[in-house]
């Protein structure tokens, strides 16, 4: 399967078909999700209307981790099998994941002030997510820090793989240590602790965020592959 996608032309052909599909899913689920989240879902018994922050914050935090796992996995594939398309997927995922992480941190802060009484605390959950954000930034800086692009790609891939240790720490931080952040509501062993009328818009938003990631990923990877083609043509032209 790795070899099948290692062919950029095949990858371009496949993603050109998937891209409009991802766009349509994004627009429909995000539109419906936002409508449910802001107008059709009930207020919370404790947090009243402020709970609506959840529909933006929680999927962003999920995607922050999802993108990081994708980044680390495709970095490993690129490093082990010298897989060019995997390298481009990793490179294109990093800024998207960084944006999701920033969104999770920013909305979490806006939510924390009215509910907890503080914008920020150094508890295990918040701190580990901030480290995730720095890992994304570090990956992007390292990738572009070398004159020779392949060396940058390899160094950044190693950083991405090392940083994957942070992902289980984020996930289980709220169970291993006392934190101000509450434990997981949806992804837990004894089923979600969230009423169906609130779970529905949350899951719609989660699908929307995921489809949005793939939509942007396809745009970015295609642009990257085409830029590579242009570069190769230029070099051939210059060599006459």
């Amino acid at each position, binding site marked *: 399967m790795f070899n099948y996608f290692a062919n950029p032309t095949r990858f371009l052909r496949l993603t050109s078909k998937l891209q409009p599909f991802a766009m349509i899913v994004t627009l429909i689920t995000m539109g419906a999700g936002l409508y449910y989240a802001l107008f059709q879902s009930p207020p919370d018994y404790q947090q009243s209307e402020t709970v609506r922050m959840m529909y933006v914050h929680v999927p962003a935090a999920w995607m922050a981790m999802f993108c990081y796992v994708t980044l680390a996995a495709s970095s490993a594939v690129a490093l082990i099998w010298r897989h060019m398309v995997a390298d481009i997927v990793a490179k294109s995922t990093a800024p998207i994941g960084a944006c999701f992480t920033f969104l999770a941190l920013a909305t979490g802060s806006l939510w924390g002030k009215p509910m907890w*009484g503080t914008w920020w605390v150094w508890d295990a959950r918040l701190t580990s997510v901030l480290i995730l954000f720095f890992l994304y930034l570090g990956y992007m800086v390292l990738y572009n820090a070398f004159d020779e692009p392949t060396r940058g790609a390899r160094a950044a891939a190693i950083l991405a793989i090392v940083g994957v240790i942070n992902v289980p720490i984020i996930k289980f931080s709220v169970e291993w240590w006392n934190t101000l952040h509450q434990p997981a509501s949806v992804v837990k062993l004894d089923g979600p602790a969230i009423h169906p009328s609130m779970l529905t818009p949350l899951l719609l938003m989660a699908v929307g965020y995921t489809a949005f990631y793939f939509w942007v990923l396809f745009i970015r990877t295609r642009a990257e592959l085409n830029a590579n083609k242009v570069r190769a043509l230029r070099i051939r032209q210059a060599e006459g």
Partner: protein
Amino acid sequence: MAMKRKHRRLSFIALGLLFLGSAAALILTAFEDNIVFFHSPTEITEKFAKNELKPTQRLRVGGLVEEGSVTKTADGATNRFKVTDLNKSIVVEFRGILPDLFREGQGIVAEGRYNNAVFIATEVLAKHDETYMPPEVAEALKKSGQWKPAAKEK
């Protein structure tokens, strides 16, 4: 030969992750006391009894606001309440505005100093649990006796 190099890289990465993972686990276990955001009233009273914590140290206590314990002191601006982990409780005094979620039975975290059996807080943060539901559902659960208070709060 090419196959062999791939396998070498794969096992190198797998081994490296294993080592790093164990190192991270050891470090996090060793620094557990510094990573926890707050201590329970039981831990605090025990550590003070053993002199592991001192009245000059800033620390955080977390637990539930004990039912019926919230009062104001004579100056009218200082809140006085008990924080409990359902085993031990600690008297907390806080001069300032309490967060909206503050109420009896609610999880809170207070930061300050513990001296002469009174915790003088400089900041009180509210904690909420992972349960989300509409107010009508919460009302119905309370009526039918299915309501479980946040007893598992650490």
